[in-house]
Structure formats: C-alpha cells, structure tokens
C-alpha cells in the first residue's frame, strides 16, 4: 500500500534557523525535506506515512503577516495535496501554538484536508482551536517531544486514512466537546469507587464528564468619566430591524446581528422587532425599546450624561441558559467593540 502523504508545519526554532532573533523568518516551502521534529514523526509513522514537504515559518512573521502567510501556506499545501497536515508540536510556545492552530484549522476548513497539531494544554492556541482541530496534549517543553510524536503520529495516520477517531482519552487529544464512546478497562461502579477514594483523600481525580463552563471572569474597573464614555448596547433579546434582514433564527441562532443605529432616536413598531422565539414577542414588537433602550440612551446622550451611544449594536437570540451557543459570537463582537473604542457595554436579556 502506498504511504500516506504528509505536509508538516514547523517554526523557525524547530527548523534550527534561530530563536527569537529569527522569528521574522518568512514562510518557506521545502519539498521533499524532513526537518527537525519531522524526523521523530517519520519514525513514528513506521511505514504508513511519509513527510513529502515541510513548511517553515517564523512565529512573528506568521502572526504579523497573517493573511499573506496563511494564503501562501494554503496554496503550497493545496499544491502538495497531502492526505493529512501536521503542525508542530508547539509545546508551551504561545505564538507558535496559535500559528499551528490557525493554519491547521485553515487547512482543514478551506482545503478539506484533515489536520492535527499538538501543544501544552495551557498554550493559548489550545483553548482557541481545540474545538476546531484535533490537538494532541503535550508536555510544556520540547523535552516532551518523544511522548508528543508518539500520540501525534498515529492520530495523523488515522486521520489520513479517514478512520474513526476514538475518545480523547484513548487517542490523546484534548477534549473537544464531542462525546465519543469507548470501553474502559474497569466497569463503571469500580471507577466510581476509585474516584471516590481519591476525592476522599483530597487527591487529584479526573471526572469523566466535565460540567459545562462555570468559570468566572473578574470584573473590569468601573467607568471613570461617564460623561465622555462611549457606551454600546448588546442584547440577547433578538432585537433586529423590521423584517429581520439577516434572518437571525428564533433560537440558538447560528449567527449574530450587527446593526447601525446612527441617527436612530427611538425604536418603533414600524422599524424594529424581535427575532427571538424564546418569549412572547408581542411587547417587544410593539416597542423594541422595551428590550433595547435606545430612546433613553439618546436622551442621556443629548443631556451629556454619557459621552455617546456607540453607533452599532449587537443582537442574538441565545437565551440565558444556553451559554455555549452564544459564546463564540460574543468573543467575536467583543473584539470589534474593543477595537471601536467602546468604554462600557449595557447587555440586556429577557
């Protein structure tokens, strides 16, 4: 059987070009070359796969020339047409981890070629991309290379062959929110007794089903000068321009709305409505200010109580309890709000 073809992505450091001083090294394709960690990968591929090309890119270069680097690399990968794309492992190198995640996700998403990477669980790239591509969990430094490629290589081979991927605990990737069945060595009751013994002894134990995200974020400092502050409105109450031009779904929306209210002094029955299916919409349709208080904030803007009302508002129909679905949207529009110099947000929910 022919070997699977692999394209491998690494940074300037692992290509032995140099450290931080060489981080601006532009993206480069080396066809037919196996570089650095590619050797260890090749050994672990046994006879099932081979690296046909290595792509090297400096970490700063990648992040500072994101669009160009991404486009160049995608073009090269497309041309090489591998069965699977491997990035890293990046261990605890933050920018390298983000680059590995970004490019692996892009290869998978845009070229339809399965991709896998590896990094330390606290690498910022892990949280950003673990639900998009398989990320093998590694130690926090390159001393963990042997261990990392032992998991990375077989997973890459499986992905390349299009085989079913087992549970995260079997394959060594970070839990990605997709639940996969598998058979444990011991029955559930025995595992429960062992878990209880550890918990009783205050020893670390690992739950088989982590509860949904209950983490907390510390409050930001208060707004100092309200009279000069730019305030933005966000709502989970689904307020949209009349006719719902972007077709925001009535529940668990697949996208969010961004609407310009420059010059809008009051939301009226003729101009705005709610797309939300999570409550009786009659009152919000009559007067959307009941959910998104544009009228009042315009008054306050005029009176000089607040600096200005941001000209864009953001809207989704995620209800209060469906945290997961709206998280990604919020991450995205929060970046925009930050970039637009918004000082504070009023978020209204039903």
């Amino acid at each position: 059987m022919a070997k699977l073809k692999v394209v491998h992505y690494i940074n300037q450091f692992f290509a032995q070009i140099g450290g931080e001083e060489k981080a601006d090294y532009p993206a480069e394709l080396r066809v037919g070359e196996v570089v650095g960690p590619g050797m260890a990968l090749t050994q672990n591929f046994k006879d099932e796969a081979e690296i046909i090309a290595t792509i090297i890119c400096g970490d700063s270069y990648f992040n500072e020339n994101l669009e160009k680097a991404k486009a160049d690399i995608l073009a090269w990968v497309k041309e090489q047409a591998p069965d699977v794309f491997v990035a890293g492992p990046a261990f605890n190198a933050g920018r390298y981890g983000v680059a590995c995640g970004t490019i692996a996700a892009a290869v998978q998403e845009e070229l339809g070629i399965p991709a896998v990477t590896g990094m330390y669980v606290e690498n910022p790239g892990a949280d950003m991309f673990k639900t998009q591509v398989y990320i093998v969990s590694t130690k926090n430094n390159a001393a963990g290379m042997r261990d990392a490629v032992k998991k990375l290589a077989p997973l890459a081979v499986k992905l390349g062959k299009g085989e079913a991927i087992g549970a995260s605990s079997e394959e060594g990737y970070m839990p990605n929110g997709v639940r996969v069945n598998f058979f444990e060595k011991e029955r559930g009751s025995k595992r429960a007794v062992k878990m209880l013994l550890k918990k009783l002894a205050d020893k670390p134990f690992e739950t088989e089903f982590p509860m949904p995200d209950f983490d907390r974020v510390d409050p930001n400092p208060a707004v100092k000068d309200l009279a000069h502050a730019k305030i933005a409105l966000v709502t989970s109450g689904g307020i949209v321009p009349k006719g719902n031009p972007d077709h925001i779904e009535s529940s668990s929306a697949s996208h969010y709305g961004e609407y310009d209210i420059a010059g809008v002094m009051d939301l009226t029955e003729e101009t705005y409505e709610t797309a939300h299916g999570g409550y009786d919409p009659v009152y919000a349709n009559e007067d959307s200010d009941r959910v998104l208080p544009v009228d009042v904030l315009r008054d306050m803007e005029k009176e000089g109580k607040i600096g200005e009302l941001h000209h864009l508002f953001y809207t989704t129909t995620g209800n209060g309890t469906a945290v997961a679905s709206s998280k990604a949207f919020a991450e995205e529009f929060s970046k925009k709000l930050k970039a637009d110099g918004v000082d504070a947000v009023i978020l209204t929910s039903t």
Partner: protein
Amino acid sequence: MRLEMGHIYIKDIQFAAESKIEDGILYVSEEAVKAVALEDEKIKSVSFDIAKPGESVRITPVKDVIEPRVKVEGRGGIFPGVIAKVDTVGEGKTYALKGMAVVTAGKIVGFQEGIIDMTGPGADYTPFSKTLNLVMVCEPVDGIKPHDYEKAVRFAGFRVAVYLGELARELTPDETKVYETCTIKEGMEKYPDLPRVAYVQMLQSQGLLHDTYVYGVDAKKIVPTILSPTEVMDGAIVSGNCVSACDKNPTYVHLNNPVVHDMFEQHGKTINFVCQIITNENVYLADKQRSSDWTAKLCKMLDLDGVIVSQEGFGNPDTDLIMNCKKIEAEGVKTVIITDEYAGRDGKSQSLADSDPAADAVVTGGNANQVIILPKLDKVIGTLDYVTKIAGASEETLREDGSLEVELQVLTGATNETGFNKLSAR
C-alpha cells in the same frame, strides 16, 4: 447484617422432562415452568426458549432480566412483598444461579423496547449477551389493559425465577462469599479511621413501565430510607420498568448491584460501607425536592464522608441527580455520581438536562444516542414487529438487508447507570 451468598455456576440450560440442576446443567421442564407462568389468569399463553452466548439470536422486546435465587437460611424469602411474604431480608444464606438469567419478553405497549443480541456488535453492549438466557414470551388474554399486562408479566418472571432458584436449595454452592455490614456504633468502633461511605441509589418511579418496587411498595410512594446493602441481594428491590432499555435497571442489576459489590470489596480496607440509601425520581417537582432534601439529611445524620449516587433513566432524573449531588455536597459529604449521556448522534449536544459545579466527579456509562448497526440474526425470540416501534428505532429502522440501524438506547442495559458495564465516553 451478615449474608452468605452461595454461587452455583450454570454451564448449560436444556429442556427436559424433569426440572433439576445436575453437574452445573439446568434442566427445565417446559411443562412445569409454563404452569408456573400461567398461574395468573391474565396470561393467555407463554412460550419458553433458550438463548446462549454466541448464538445468532435476538431477544426482543425484553421486559425484565432476573437471576434465579433461593433463600436457604435466615428470615424471609426472595422478592419479599412481591413473591415471598413481607419480612426483612438480607441475612442468613442465599444461593444464586450464576451465569444465567430468566428473560421476560412481551409486547405491553407498541413502542416498547429492549433488545438482547447474543452475538455481533450488539452483544458487546448488552451485558445479557453473556448469560445463558431462559426466555419467556407472555401473551395476555384479549382486551387486557396495559397496566394489568405489565403486572402479569412482571410477576410471572419472578415466579419462574423463584421456581428455578428452588431447584438449588439442597445443592452445595461452587463458591461462597460473605457480605457483612456493621451497625452504626459497631462500624465506628471497628473502623475508626476509615471514611464512612454509603451508596445512594435513585429508583425510577414515574408511572406505567417507569416504576420500581421496594418490598412490594411502589417507589413513588416512599420517602428516602436506608437499607442494609445485603437486602437487595435477596430481591428487596425489583424492576417494573423497561422503557428506554439502555439505562433502566432490570431486576438482575438490583440483585447484583455493582456499586454494592464494589463497595463491599473495599469495606474494612479503605472504606466503612455504612449502608445503602434509596430515593426516588418522581414527576412532581415538590416530590423531587422532598426526596433530595431527605437524602442529604440522611447522609448528614449518618455522619458520612462520601457517597456514590447512581441514576436511573433519562431526562427528569437528571434534575434529581443534580439536586441530590448539590445538597449532599452542601452537607460536606463528598460525592461521585454515575450517569449516562444523551449527547446526540453526533456527540455534540449537551449530555445532561441539568448541571451544577458541585458535580465535579462524574462516571458515565456512555452516549446512548450513538448509532449502531445490528446485523440480521438467524433467529428472533419475541418479535421484530415491535423493533420498528421502539425508542431509538422507527419504522425506517429496518434496513433492506434485514439489519437494524438503531441507537444504543434500545439495547437492554447498554448504558446502565449503576456502573454495570465498561462502556464510557469522553
């Protein structure tokens, strides 16, 4: 309480003129067991069949699975308040026929479920592919109400199991195990340094085909109480439910409750296994609150350090599970919960209908929505007609080549929430 369990290993089951157990072979007089089943006039006819591990046989729709036992010493009899008179059980000597089960089948409602495959991929998931099964399919008299039919089949299974258990009364067990619990004071004195641990078992209690009985009492009507864990080995708890077969406890699981056995394994070594606490899963929310309050209260009154909580069923029991966990943890008692998941066919949906940060130690029996293809098998005991109408199946389930495309939900005991199996998920 001290219970001696004598295990008699059954190597084969055969139909014969006379019922007896000889050299590990169970000979069953079809005529005799039929007579036992037909004692109830609501049952019109019954047929018996034998299904052995590895055979190309599918049993469906399964109602209950029961291990035959006999009480040879001590108070009471097997299935107190149901078959035997009401008397406290759990001490003395009991024999069990190991490696076999009585399986009851019969169409009580049209969407009933419960498949046991004796071979193929389905056999990997249902624990009852590994037992020699004496299957009884019961047909009711005409015009019977589902309530009456359910009860008739439930009791017929217990009668037959007790009849078979009786055959072992004079035998010498192949193996004997002793299970002994202490009274509260004894335990404190005997194991002063061991953590005090109990098993909290939640019992399905919602309505027809969703019920459980404790000493014959409908579990809907109990308030949480404590048992000696040996009581369940004599049949103190029996199953009256079979809808959503993957995560319901057949009577076999109550008799062989794995949490009870694995806790006994550690009893006196790493833990002091104080008792079993039983509670219910009612539909009415105030009942849920009362029961979880009481369960937490009992944990506190018993000065427990830790508990394992097991769930039974899908959906609203998630609320009971989380209430129990939260309230028990709030009493300072460390908690591990056992559940299963409904994460959707793609594994991406939220697995439970409730959650709380206090539930930080969870054992899972796997995702019941996982799709599995069950190949056509040579023989069907019961009828496939109903398979197309069971949970996780549909009229479209039966594929052209005779195989079935179903979710794990339909396989009896596949994602059991007492930790009976090795299946898990991450």
